[in-house]
């Protein structure tokens, strides 16, 4: 069964500290993984997709098929990074359905 696991509900760090938001997936096919961010009271926004291998707002994420992981990283957290972060698996067998993890709240303190 397809599943996305984000083990941490809350990650609390100080400004300037490194951040790693964990995401593991379970999928028998070739995975397409995404990170979405939801700032307070705003819409879900696409942050990263593994296919493009880009860095957005200093965040990067590498797909590790051996460990079935897609962890989100940033070397120096900023207060404006505080938000909910959702890892999502694109399940193409179901007309582009996205399966979300439970989300991790990142709180960056001054």
């Amino acid at each position, binding site marked *: 069964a397809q599943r996305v696991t984000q083990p941490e509900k809350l990650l609390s760090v100080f400004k300037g500290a490194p951040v790693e938001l964990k995401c593991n997936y379970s999928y028998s096919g070739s995975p397409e993984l995404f990170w979405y961010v939801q700032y307070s009271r*705003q819409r879900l926004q696409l942050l990263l997709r593994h296919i493009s291998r880009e860095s957005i707002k200093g965040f990067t994420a590498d797909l590790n098929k051996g460990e079935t992981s897609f962890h989100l990283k940033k070397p120096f957290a900023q207060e404006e990074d505080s938000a909910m972060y959702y890892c999502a698996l694109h399940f193409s067998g179901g*007309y582009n359905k*996205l399966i979300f993890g439970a989300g991790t709240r990142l709180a960056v303190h001054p």
Partner: protein
Amino acid sequence: EPEVTQTPSHQVTQMGQEVILRCVPISNHLYFYWYRQILGQKVEFLVSFYNNEISEKSEIFDDQFSVERPDGSNFTLKIRSTKLEDSAMYFCASSGQGYNGYTFGSGTRLTVV
């Protein structure tokens, strides 16, 4: 940048009443979706819609729910007889051909009292 628009932003309704949540997807997108997020819980898939019909629906999407694209621009979610547990944030999303990620609307907060 094109946006997915949802109205209303907040809807309060009495248990047993019908509600219609409205969405205007991005105009050249072909796939449309509804997701919901109960307070404090994960975002859950409800239904996907393609080529004027439902392509997939989750267990949550029972007979009380229906979707429609009545005029080629709006995409609506109807809940026939609301229950307290339908209280949630409902997100509409759309995507184009050659999936590159959804665009989500800002959501409708439904409160059933």
